[in-house]
């Protein structure tokens, strides 16, 4: 039971973003896909759920190849693999409760008469029950993130993808989101891929780290191995220094 990338390439026009990504995450494991901004981390995970199609290479979800699936064939994959988007991407026109209820209703996860109760349970799980009737514009970024997590959980997924879940949050909210991700992964046994460049998150909750650099996986291993690495590029990323061998897009 795993998600596997095998030599995945992706180009946008003449711009080659991914140049051979190979990595995997097991169920119950938290994999952090890290790297500098613009390196292709979000692009990588969007291939799993068909939001992007690879130029070449293959992606397997529990042994099923997904790179050539059509939009409708992705529906069962999207029930199995949920995603929490970078900006939370809550639907502005729907209340917090309706946001969580929508996938429950559309994916027919629970009977129609139990959608409301199930959505409330999920909001309770992320500590957002009392905000059920408000609209996304009325709550803060950290709260939006928690609602987005509840919406992702609505699908009862085997895997959850988090696209920079702590970016833009204050340190306290960020650590609370980390704690929530860790609890969900361990309690529910979901496979988790977190795209991030937030070092406290990376070193706080990851089981495994895959570092994307120049379109490829530059490093894959445990956080202890990552910390111990003497590779100058890895050290520069950890220390966050501007001078060093690491090339960053746009600089």
């Amino acid at each position, binding site marked *: 039971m795993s998600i596997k990338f095998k030599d995945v390439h992706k180009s946008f026009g003449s711009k080659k973003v991914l140049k051979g990504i190979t990595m995997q995450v097991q169920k119950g494991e938290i994999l952090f896909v890290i790297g500098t901004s613009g390196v292709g981390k979000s692009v990588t995970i*969007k291939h799993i*759920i068909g*939001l992007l199609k690879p130029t070449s290479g293959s992606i397997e979800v529990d042994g099923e190849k997904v790179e050539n699936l059509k*939009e409708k064939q*992705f*529906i069962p994959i*999207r*029930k199995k693999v*949920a*995603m929490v*988007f*970078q*900006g939370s*991407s*809550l*639907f*502005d026109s729907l209340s917090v409760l309706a946001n969580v209820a*929508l*996938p429950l209703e*559309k*994916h027919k996860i629970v009977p129609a008469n139990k959608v409301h109760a199930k959505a409330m349970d999920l909001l309770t799980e992320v500590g957002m029950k009392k905000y059920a009737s408000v609209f996304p514009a009325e709550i803060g970024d950290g709260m939006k993130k928690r609602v987005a997590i509840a*919406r992702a959980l609505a699908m009862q997924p085997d895997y959850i993808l988090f696209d920079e879940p702590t970016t833009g949050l204050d340190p306290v909210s960020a650590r609370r989101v980390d704690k929530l991700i860790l609890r969900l992964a361990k309690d529910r046994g979901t496979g988790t891929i977190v795209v991030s460049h937030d070092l406290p998150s990376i070193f706080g909750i990851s089981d495994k780290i895959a570092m994307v650099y120049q379109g490829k996986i530059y490093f894959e291993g445990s956080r202890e191995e990552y910390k111990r690495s003497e590779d100058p590029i890895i050290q520069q990323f950890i220390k966050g220094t501007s001078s060093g061998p690491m090339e960053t897009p746009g600089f």
Partner: protein
Amino acid sequence: MIKQISTNIFATIGDKTINIFVAAKTLFLVTLNTFRGVFHFKSREKGEILKQAYEIGNRSFLFVSVTLSALGMVLVFQVCLQINKITGDQSQVGPEFIKGMIHAFVPILTAMMLATRVGAGIAAEIGSMKVTEQIDALRMSGVDPIDYLIVPRFIASIFMTFILGIYAALLVILAGAFMAHHSFGVNYNVFFVFDKVTWGDLIIGSTKLLVHGSAIPVVSGYCGLTTKVGSEGVGTATTRAVINSSLAVIILDFIISAIGLMTIQ
């Protein structure tokens, strides 16, 4: 050097051609899926069509009223003014004006106004959802963005364009009659003569309203769904929606008029 320049020219032409074909294919698919989506009753949110009908119809009411009544008065004033210089016989102004409005002017003008107001709104809303990844979130939630976003607007737009078109026709005729009576002394009984309006005029006028009403949300929705990143992308999509919807209305109007002339009239 020459080889390099010619290669670049061919690459640019090829690139543009591919882009045009991709855009045409995408627009075709959006249109096809919108028509299919009309029959996906279960995927529609309750009350969404009414909400969109309110957005499209009620909020365009004043805009259409002011513009078309002003246009009706100006047109009749100018026609009467010119006729006064030649024969002075104003008896045919009303019947010809009514026929022309029903057959040609009201459908295209109403649709063009809706293309600017409604088309821009649809593209801006869907475009914003695209750049904030809400469209992707919809797909992740098992919702087809075309069924959810474009189809309710499509149904509401057809209905409301038709209703607004009828209202606009009545208003423009009344405004024209008012101007003819008060500025040139044309009797209302002489102006309100509907003998020249044939069933063909009514069928062509109605067909135009229905077709234009269906084209605006499809073209604008397509522009919204193909928005490029950032707020600049939303701005560009909105502009594209207004231009392309207006262009679609003009082309469709021409086609319906031509078919109408060849068959009905």
